[in-house]
């Protein structure tokens, strides 16, 4: 029996991309039971795109809380056994969900993640600065049992980036089992051309790494 799946799409000013993201979900060979699209205060008409899919997509609009806040809103609304996530600017290959479900059923793992292929926004292959075709615990490549979130709580909304690393670190500490799906399950769009950083990202990065180190050393759950 195929487990029920809720897909949570998050969107912030992705009007040019989010339609393709939703289409890639609707085109899955393993159809999800629920599609929740959370628009996180977009000002570019993204919500209109989400609403255009009618009752097939539960479109939610909220005041901007950041990506973690949008994800948490979607998780609270989700009703299925498994949750999958997709950024509004990324897409899934047609067998993405089916490939991950097959691994989940075969292994019984709580968390399954597959291979991420990175593509430039114009469709070109990224240069060497953007490694690609790697299995990664990136949300869009994951399938996660709903009950994991009941134990771990949601994503930390104080983090603008790397909230998924922080969540995975918590989940790992709590002993949830991972399994790797060898197939490409996420086509991740690269927007920036330059190796760039900013203060917020560096700050989040160090917060997350320190928490991860603390968990590894002391077994402290934070």
């Amino acid at each position, binding site marked *: 029996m195929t487990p*029920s799946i809720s897909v949570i799409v998050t969107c*912030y*000013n*992705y009007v*040019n991309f989010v339609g393709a993201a939703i289409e890639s979900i609707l085109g899955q060979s393993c159809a999800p039971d629920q599609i929740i699209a959370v628009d996180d205060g977009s*000002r570019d008409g993204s919500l209109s795109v989400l609403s255009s899919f009618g009752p097939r997509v539960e479109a939610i609009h909220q*005041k*901007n809380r*950041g*990506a973690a806040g949008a994800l948490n809103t979607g*998780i*609270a*609304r*989700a*009703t*299925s*056994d498994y949750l999958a996530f997709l950024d509004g*600017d990324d897409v899934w290959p047609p067998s993405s969900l089916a490939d991950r479900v097959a691994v989940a059923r075969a292994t019984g793992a709580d968390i399954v993640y597959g291979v991420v292929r*990175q593509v430039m926004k114009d469709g070109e292959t990224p240069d060497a600065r*953007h*490694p690609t075709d790697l*299995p*990664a*615990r*990136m949300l869009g490549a994951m399938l996660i049992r*709903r*009950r994991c*979130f*009941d134990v*771990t*709580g*949601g994503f*930390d909304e*104080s983090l*603008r*980036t790397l909230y*998924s690393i922080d969540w*995975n*670190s918590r989940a790992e500490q709590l002993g949830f089992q991972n399994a790797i799906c060898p197939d490409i399950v996420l086509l*991740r769009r*690269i*927007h*920036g051309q*330059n*190796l*760039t*950083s*900013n203060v*917020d*990202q*560096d700050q989040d*990065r160090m*917060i997350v*790494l*320190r*928490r*991860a*180190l*603390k968990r*590894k050393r002391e077994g402290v759950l934070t």
Partner: protein
Amino acid sequence: MSVFSDVARFEPNAPLVVSETAEGETIILHHGTGTYFSTTGSGLMIWEAVGGAVNVASIVDRMSKVYQVTPQIAQEAVSSFLQTLADHDLIRAASAEAIVQDIEMASAGPMAFAEPVLEVHTDLADFLLLDPIHDVDTAVGWPQPAAPRPKPRDPAAPLKAIQPEKPLR
């Protein structure tokens, strides 16, 4: 015998390498490998000196003053640690323009010496290799905040559990 000249100067391999020191520990991240590192004590002192583009002789001299260690052992420790940092691509030869910033270490007196150690962590490499540092766009999408950045959560506080609006199946 050090493999490095006394006047050799190094600097962190930015922008691939970023670091932060807090609570007596330095965390160093290499974006190119997704590996992160940590060091404390004498290793932290050497990393801070590298950040200031201080030459090798000055690092050894500082270590000899801060720690209860002979100049020879200090020389060997500094040389060995610099080599370790170089092996992990964390440092490079300082450019001629690099300005020396000799940061004084507060110390009540010479401290007991322990060899500098660099802890190497690869457990988050899959995340960090695909990290959004590579993916910044000024026009669309997160992480550009539309609202003020929220206050960081107290790490000691438990996360609030999510309550589903509908009962789970």
